[in-house]
């Protein structure tokens, strides 16, 4: 009896959590007459890919397609990942491999800057982007997202570096390997999986961001996907089928990546904070 109650509660939670995601995908597969009918169908009766075809082939704005926005977003996210991964790896090595005077200060700095409300930085970063002449360019976003993703990336990566046994590097050093060689041949391959996990978080940060992309880029050809979606979605008669198809395409990579690394997210935010 108790077991049934628990399982029932479990099913309710599962429904509440997963339903919107299901509904997004289901709607994207329905023909318009099902979407706008008076009685919603839980499952598409005649599933169709017409909405996907529509957004992938049609021009959202004259001359610009969904694929263009997708590529803009991908370009920004990948550049952010590469830059942030490189810088974070160096810093994480410093923190995990060396004891130096300002180490604790640096760790506290990392914690504190993660708490800076990024929303409060839109105006001063807008000023910086204007001054640097980067307004209306994708690099303005890459630069911004690098700053946002870096503190968490270092915080997470230092755990992976610390997990590589020091003895391996020492053995390599004894065999005559230089510092750079040890780093490249020993530490880097062993930290690589951690680097991938960290990169996924940087990717998601950059991929999902809306406010800065909305503010720093005015040229419709350079819109990232989130900005294009709000634009696309802001029209009066909302074409829900296409909006849901676009949402699904936007969400899918994030969900796949996220599921790959979610466990580290918890330890990064909670348990990771506890370990010195």
């Amino acid at each position, binding site marked *: 009896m108790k077991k049934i109650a628990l399982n029932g509660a479990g099913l309710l939670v599962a429904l509440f959590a997963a339903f919107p995601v299901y509904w997004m995908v289901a709607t994207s597969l329905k023909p318009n007459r099902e979407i*706008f009918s008076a009685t919603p169908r839980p499952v598409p009766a005649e599933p169709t890919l017409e909405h996907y075809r529509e957004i992938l082939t049609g021009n959202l704005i004259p001359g610009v397609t969904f694929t263009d926005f997708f590529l803009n977003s991908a370009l920004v996210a990948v550049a952010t990942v590469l830059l942030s991964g490189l810088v974070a790896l160096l810093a994480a090595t*410093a923190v995990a*491999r060396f004891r130096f005077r300002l180490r604790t200060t640096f760790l506290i700095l990392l914690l504190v800057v993660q*708490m800076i409300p990024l929303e409060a930085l*839109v*105006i001063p970063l807008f000023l910086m982007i204007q001054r640097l002449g980067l307004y209306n360019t994708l690099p303005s976003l890459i630069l911004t997202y690098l*700053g946002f993703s870096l*503190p968490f990336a270092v915080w997470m990566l230092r755990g992976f570096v610390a997990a590589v046994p020091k003895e391996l590097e020492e053995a390599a050093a004894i065999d005559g390997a230089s510092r750079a060689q040890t780093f490249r041949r020993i530490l880097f391959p062993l930290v690589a999986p951690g680097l991938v996990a960290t990169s996924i978080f940087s990717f998601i940060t950059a991929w999902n961001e809306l406010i800065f992309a909305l503010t720093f880029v005015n040229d419709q050809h350079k819109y990232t996907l989130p900005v294009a979606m709000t634009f696309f979605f802001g029209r009066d008669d909302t074409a829900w089928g296409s909006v849901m198809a676009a949402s699904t395409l936007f969400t899918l990579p994030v969900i796949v990546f*996220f599921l790959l690394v979610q466990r580290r997210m918890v330890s990064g935010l909670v348990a990771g904070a506890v370990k010195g």
Partner: protein
Amino acid sequence: MTTLTETTGTGAARETPARRRRRVDHLPYLLLLPCLAVIAVLLLWPLGQVLMMSFYKLDSVRQLRGDREWPWVGLANYAQILGDPFFRTVLRNTVLFAVVTVVLTMIIGTLVGLLLNRLGKKMATFVASCVMLAWATPALTGTIVWKWIFDDTSGLVTWLFNKLPDGLSTTLFGRSDWTGYGWFNDPLLFFAILTLVVVWHSFPFIAVSVLAGLKSVPSELQEAARVDGAGPWRVFWSVTFPMLRPVFGILVVLSTIWDFKVFTQQFVLAGGTQDRSTFMLSIYSYAEAFSPPPKYGLGSAIAVILTLILLAVTALYVRMVLRQEDE
């Protein structure tokens, strides 16, 4: 390490570590340099800039580009905001929203965490996977879907309310036909839906963290308490909660910080920055600065106020983490 090098015995090997020890002095700083530069230029410098900008009257992009001068106005921007009754509405909206959302997120998240801990293995995996979906969904698309669910003509909620028996619907809400009902027009209803969306996005993190906490403490104590006849309520408050107190502390602070500066969900639900009655601090600051006519100085002052509030909460967070590290 020293023992290893001593056993190798050759002169060259003995020199290498010694040389390295000398280099160690500046190598870590060198490795940190790019990271520190990024943090300084892209986070700390703008933080200083926003404070500085809040003391100026900045009304055009040309001022930002440096083509026009910046008139210093001292605290006038702050005086204008704090003297405006609208600011009090915004502050009340922000605080109330954060409090309600944090409380609901914590309660639902904790309950789901406890539930996941009690379910059988297969069921727990299934429920956890569904919960992960809500967590993984980007704020933007998650909000768009909820907006579709609350659509005034073909939305699921509109359909559900239309399904209510007409008499019941009329006595309860004063209407039986819900088609065309603007769910987002009434500020209170808007905030209720916004809370729903944000709680939906954020309870998974709490649930998973609480579950991780539960797995890390021995379950014997709870079982013992149960055998001694304690009900679930008693077991939670007397046994489970005290053990997980540090985790709860951090979770509450993190949630508070996140919910104080909600932007994307509000921006998408409200369809932009036109609906001033539902403003909260972050969107208020943004709208003042970027909706024409631009008022960058005023927006900066609001951003500074938001930052100060969050700084207080952050101080609390850092103290908690440091105290845990001591233990």
